[in-house]
Protein backbone atom coordinates (compact mmCIF):
# COMPACT_ATOMS: atom_id res chain seq x y z
CA UNK A 1 0.00 0.00 0.00
CA UNK A 2 1.49 3.32 -1.05
CA UNK A 3 1.50 6.09 1.53
CA UNK A 4 -0.93 8.86 0.55
CA UNK A 5 -1.66 10.85 3.71
CA UNK A 6 0.74 13.50 4.93
CA UNK A 7 0.39 15.40 8.21
CA UNK A 8 -0.11 19.11 7.43
CA UNK A 9 0.54 20.98 4.19
CA UNK A 10 2.47 19.47 1.28
CA UNK A 11 5.66 21.50 0.92
CA UNK A 12 7.24 22.62 -2.33
CA UNK A 13 10.41 20.78 -1.22
CA UNK A 14 8.45 17.53 -1.02
CA UNK A 15 7.18 18.12 -4.56
CA UNK A 16 10.69 18.92 -5.79
CA UNK A 17 12.00 15.69 -4.24
CA UNK A 18 9.29 13.67 -5.97
CA UNK A 19 10.21 15.23 -9.31
CA UNK A 20 13.93 14.66 -8.77
CA UNK A 21 13.34 10.98 -7.98
CA UNK A 22 11.94 10.47 -11.48
CA UNK A 23 15.05 11.71 -13.24
CA UNK A 24 16.59 8.25 -13.17
CA UNK A 25 13.63 6.82 -15.14
CA UNK A 26 14.83 7.35 -18.69
CA UNK A 27 11.71 6.03 -20.40
CA UNK A 28 9.62 8.93 -19.06
CA UNK A 29 9.03 11.82 -21.46
CA UNK A 30 6.15 13.68 -19.80
CA UNK A 31 4.95 14.47 -16.29
CA UNK A 32 1.72 16.13 -15.28
CA UNK A 33 1.16 17.46 -11.78
CA UNK A 34 -1.99 18.71 -10.13
CA UNK A 35 -1.78 20.76 -6.94
CA UNK A 36 -4.78 21.86 -4.92
CA UNK A 37 -4.21 25.00 -2.87
CA UNK A 38 -6.43 26.20 -0.02
CA UNK A 39 -8.31 29.30 -1.17
CA UNK A 40 -9.37 32.24 1.04
CA UNK A 41 -13.02 31.80 0.10
CA UNK A 42 -15.50 34.36 1.33
CA UNK A 43 -18.24 32.93 3.60
CA UNK A 44 -20.73 35.73 4.24
CA UNK A 45 -18.55 38.39 5.91
CA UNK A 46 -15.85 35.93 6.97
CA UNK A 47 -12.96 34.35 5.10
CA UNK A 48 -11.58 30.82 5.14
CA UNK A 49 -8.17 30.84 6.84
CA UNK A 50 -7.45 27.08 6.91
CA UNK A 51 -8.96 23.66 6.32
CA UNK A 52 -8.65 20.84 8.84
CA UNK A 53 -8.71 17.53 7.02
CA UNK A 54 -9.69 14.19 8.50
CA UNK A 55 -10.21 10.89 6.71
CA UNK A 56 -11.60 7.44 7.23
CA UNK A 57 -8.11 6.16 6.50
CA UNK A 58 -8.75 2.41 6.19
CA UNK A 59 -11.48 2.92 3.61
CA UNK A 60 -9.60 5.78 1.91
CA UNK A 61 -6.55 3.58 1.39
CA UNK A 62 -8.67 0.81 -0.13
CA UNK A 63 -10.40 3.28 -2.46
CA UNK A 64 -7.11 4.90 -3.45
CA UNK A 65 -5.72 1.49 -4.32
CA UNK A 66 -8.73 0.83 -6.60
CA UNK A 67 -8.37 4.28 -8.18
CA UNK A 68 -4.68 3.68 -8.91
CA UNK A 69 -5.43 0.30 -10.52
CA UNK A 70 -8.19 1.76 -12.68
CA UNK A 71 -5.93 4.61 -13.86
CA UNK A 72 -3.22 2.16 -14.92
CA UNK A 73 -5.87 0.22 -16.86
CA UNK A 74 -7.34 3.30 -18.56
CA UNK A 75 -4.15 5.20 -19.41
CA UNK A 76 -0.68 4.32 -20.62
CA UNK A 77 1.29 5.47 -17.56
CA UNK A 78 4.77 4.75 -16.24
CA UNK A 79 3.91 5.72 -12.68
CA UNK A 80 1.52 7.78 -10.60
CA UNK A 81 1.49 9.20 -7.10
CA UNK A 82 -1.28 10.67 -4.99
CA UNK A 83 -0.67 12.61 -1.76
CA UNK A 84 -3.25 14.29 0.46
CA UNK A 85 -2.92 16.29 3.65
CA UNK A 86 -4.47 15.45 6.99
CA UNK A 87 -4.73 18.01 9.79
CA UNK A 88 -4.48 21.75 9.28
CA UNK A 89 -3.62 23.30 5.91
CA UNK A 90 -3.57 27.08 5.83
CA UNK A 91 -4.72 29.33 3.03
CA UNK A 92 -2.11 29.35 0.22
CA UNK A 93 -0.77 25.95 1.22
CA UNK A 94 -1.08 22.75 -0.81
CA UNK A 95 -3.41 19.95 0.32
CA UNK A 96 -3.38 17.55 -2.65
CA UNK A 97 -0.58 16.53 -5.02
CA UNK A 98 -1.27 14.20 -7.94
CA UNK A 99 1.71 13.24 -10.10
CA UNK A 100 1.41 11.26 -13.34
CA UNK A 101 4.30 10.19 -15.58
CA UNK A 102 4.28 8.59 -19.00
CA UNK A 103 6.49 7.86 -21.98
CA UNK A 104 4.60 10.43 -24.05
CA UNK A 105 2.51 13.43 -23.18
CA UNK A 106 -0.76 12.57 -24.90
CA UNK A 107 -2.66 11.01 -21.97
CA UNK A 108 -1.10 12.66 -18.94
CA UNK A 109 -3.50 15.60 -18.69
CA UNK A 110 -6.59 13.41 -18.83
CA UNK A 111 -5.08 10.89 -16.42
CA UNK A 112 -4.40 13.64 -13.86
CA UNK A 113 -7.91 15.03 -14.23
CA UNK A 114 -9.38 11.55 -13.82
CA UNK A 115 -7.37 10.91 -10.65
CA UNK A 116 -8.25 14.23 -9.04
CA UNK A 117 -11.94 13.74 -9.78
CA UNK A 118 -11.89 10.18 -8.46
CA UNK A 119 -10.25 11.30 -5.22
CA UNK A 120 -12.78 14.09 -4.76
CA UNK A 121 -15.77 11.85 -5.48
CA UNK A 122 -14.86 8.54 -3.92
CA UNK A 123 -12.31 8.94 -1.14
CA UNK A 124 -13.71 9.55 2.37
CA UNK A 125 -11.86 12.73 3.27
CA UNK A 126 -13.58 15.49 5.26
CA UNK A 127 -12.69 19.17 5.48
CA UNK A 128 -13.54 21.64 8.19
CA UNK A 129 -13.15 25.17 6.87
CA UNK A 130 -11.92 27.45 9.65
CA UNK A 131 -13.10 31.05 9.29
CA UNK A 132 -11.25 34.11 10.56
CA UNK A 133 -13.70 34.56 13.44
CA UNK A 134 -12.72 31.00 14.54
CA UNK A 135 -16.10 29.59 13.52
CA UNK A 136 -16.18 26.82 10.97
CA UNK A 137 -18.23 25.16 8.28
CA UNK A 138 -17.94 21.76 6.65
CA UNK A 139 -16.56 21.75 3.11
CA UNK A 140 -18.55 19.97 0.41
CA UNK A 141 -16.99 19.22 -2.98
CA UNK A 142 -18.80 20.69 -5.96
Amino acid at each position, binding site marked *: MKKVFIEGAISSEFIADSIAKHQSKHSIGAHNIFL*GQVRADQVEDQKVVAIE*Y*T*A*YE*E*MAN*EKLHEIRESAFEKFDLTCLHIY*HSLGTVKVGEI*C*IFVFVSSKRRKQVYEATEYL*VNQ*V*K*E*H*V*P*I*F*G*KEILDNAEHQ*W*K*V*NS
Partner: protein
Amino acid sequence: MITVNYFGNIAEAAQSDSETLEYNTLSLAELLDLLDSKYAIGKFPFQVAVNRKIVSKQQILSLSDSDEIALLPPFAGG
Protein backbone atom coordinates in the same frame (compact mmCIF):
# COMPACT_ATOMS: atom_id res chain seq x y z
CA MET B 1 -21.62 -4.99 20.71
CA ILE B 2 -21.69 -2.90 17.56
CA THR B 3 -19.18 -0.13 16.94
CA VAL B 4 -20.07 2.86 14.76
CA ASN B 5 -17.52 5.38 13.48
CA TYR B 6 -18.46 9.01 12.92
CA PHE B 7 -16.79 11.60 10.69
CA GLY B 8 -17.06 15.29 9.92
CA ASN B 9 -20.20 17.05 11.09
CA ILE B 10 -21.73 13.76 12.26
CA ALA B 11 -18.81 13.23 14.64
CA GLU B 12 -19.49 16.78 15.76
CA ALA B 13 -23.21 16.04 16.36
CA ALA B 14 -22.38 12.80 18.20
CA GLN B 15 -19.55 14.57 20.06
CA SER B 16 -17.44 11.50 19.38
CA ASP B 17 -15.47 9.75 16.60
CA SER B 18 -16.73 6.33 17.54
CA GLU B 19 -19.30 4.70 19.76
CA THR B 20 -20.06 1.16 20.94
CA LEU B 21 -23.71 0.16 21.13
CA GLU B 22 -24.94 -2.60 23.42
CA TYR B 23 -26.47 -4.81 20.76
CA ASN B 24 -25.29 -8.12 19.37
CA THR B 25 -27.17 -7.77 16.13
CA LEU B 26 -29.16 -4.92 14.70
CA SER B 27 -30.57 -4.18 11.27
CA LEU B 28 -29.18 -1.18 9.39
CA ALA B 29 -32.63 0.47 9.53
CA GLU B 30 -32.80 0.00 13.31
CA LEU B 31 -29.32 1.44 13.72
CA LEU B 32 -30.14 4.54 11.69
CA ASP B 33 -33.40 5.07 13.62
CA LEU B 34 -31.55 4.73 16.89
CA LEU B 35 -28.86 7.23 15.88
CA ASP B 36 -31.42 9.67 14.54
CA SER B 37 -33.25 9.61 17.85
CA LYS B 38 -29.95 10.24 19.70
CA TYR B 39 -28.30 12.83 17.43
CA ALA B 40 -30.91 13.90 14.85
CA ILE B 41 -28.52 12.71 12.11
CA GLY B 42 -31.48 12.67 9.71
CA LYS B 43 -30.92 16.36 9.05
CA PHE B 44 -27.42 15.74 7.62
CA PRO B 45 -26.59 14.32 4.23
CA PHE B 46 -24.48 11.21 4.78
CA GLN B 47 -23.63 7.78 3.40
CA VAL B 48 -23.17 4.53 5.30
CA ALA B 49 -20.14 2.30 4.85
CA VAL B 50 -20.15 -1.27 6.11
CA ASN B 51 -16.77 -2.94 6.10
CA ARG B 52 -15.38 0.01 4.10
CA LYS B 53 -17.93 -0.30 1.27
CA ILE B 54 -20.75 2.17 0.71
CA VAL B 55 -24.17 0.53 1.17
CA SER B 56 -27.61 1.94 0.47
CA LYS B 57 -29.37 3.18 3.63
CA GLN B 58 -32.42 1.23 2.40
CA GLN B 59 -30.52 -2.03 2.11
CA ILE B 60 -31.88 -4.83 4.33
CA LEU B 61 -28.79 -5.69 6.25
CA SER B 62 -28.16 -7.35 9.57
CA LEU B 63 -25.19 -5.88 11.41
CA SER B 64 -23.09 -7.74 13.95
CA ASP B 65 -20.10 -6.98 16.09
CA SER B 66 -17.61 -8.08 13.44
CA ASP B 67 -18.85 -5.36 11.06
CA GLU B 68 -16.99 -2.07 10.66
CA ILE B 69 -19.70 0.59 10.37
CA ALA B 70 -19.14 4.25 9.48
CA LEU B 71 -21.35 7.28 8.82
CA LEU B 72 -19.77 9.48 6.16
CA PRO B 73 -20.77 13.08 5.40
CA PRO B 74 -20.12 14.43 1.87
CA PHE B 75 -16.51 13.96 0.82
CA ALA B 76 -14.32 17.06 0.68
CA GLY B 77 -10.91 15.84 -0.43
CA GLY B 78 -8.73 17.87 -2.76
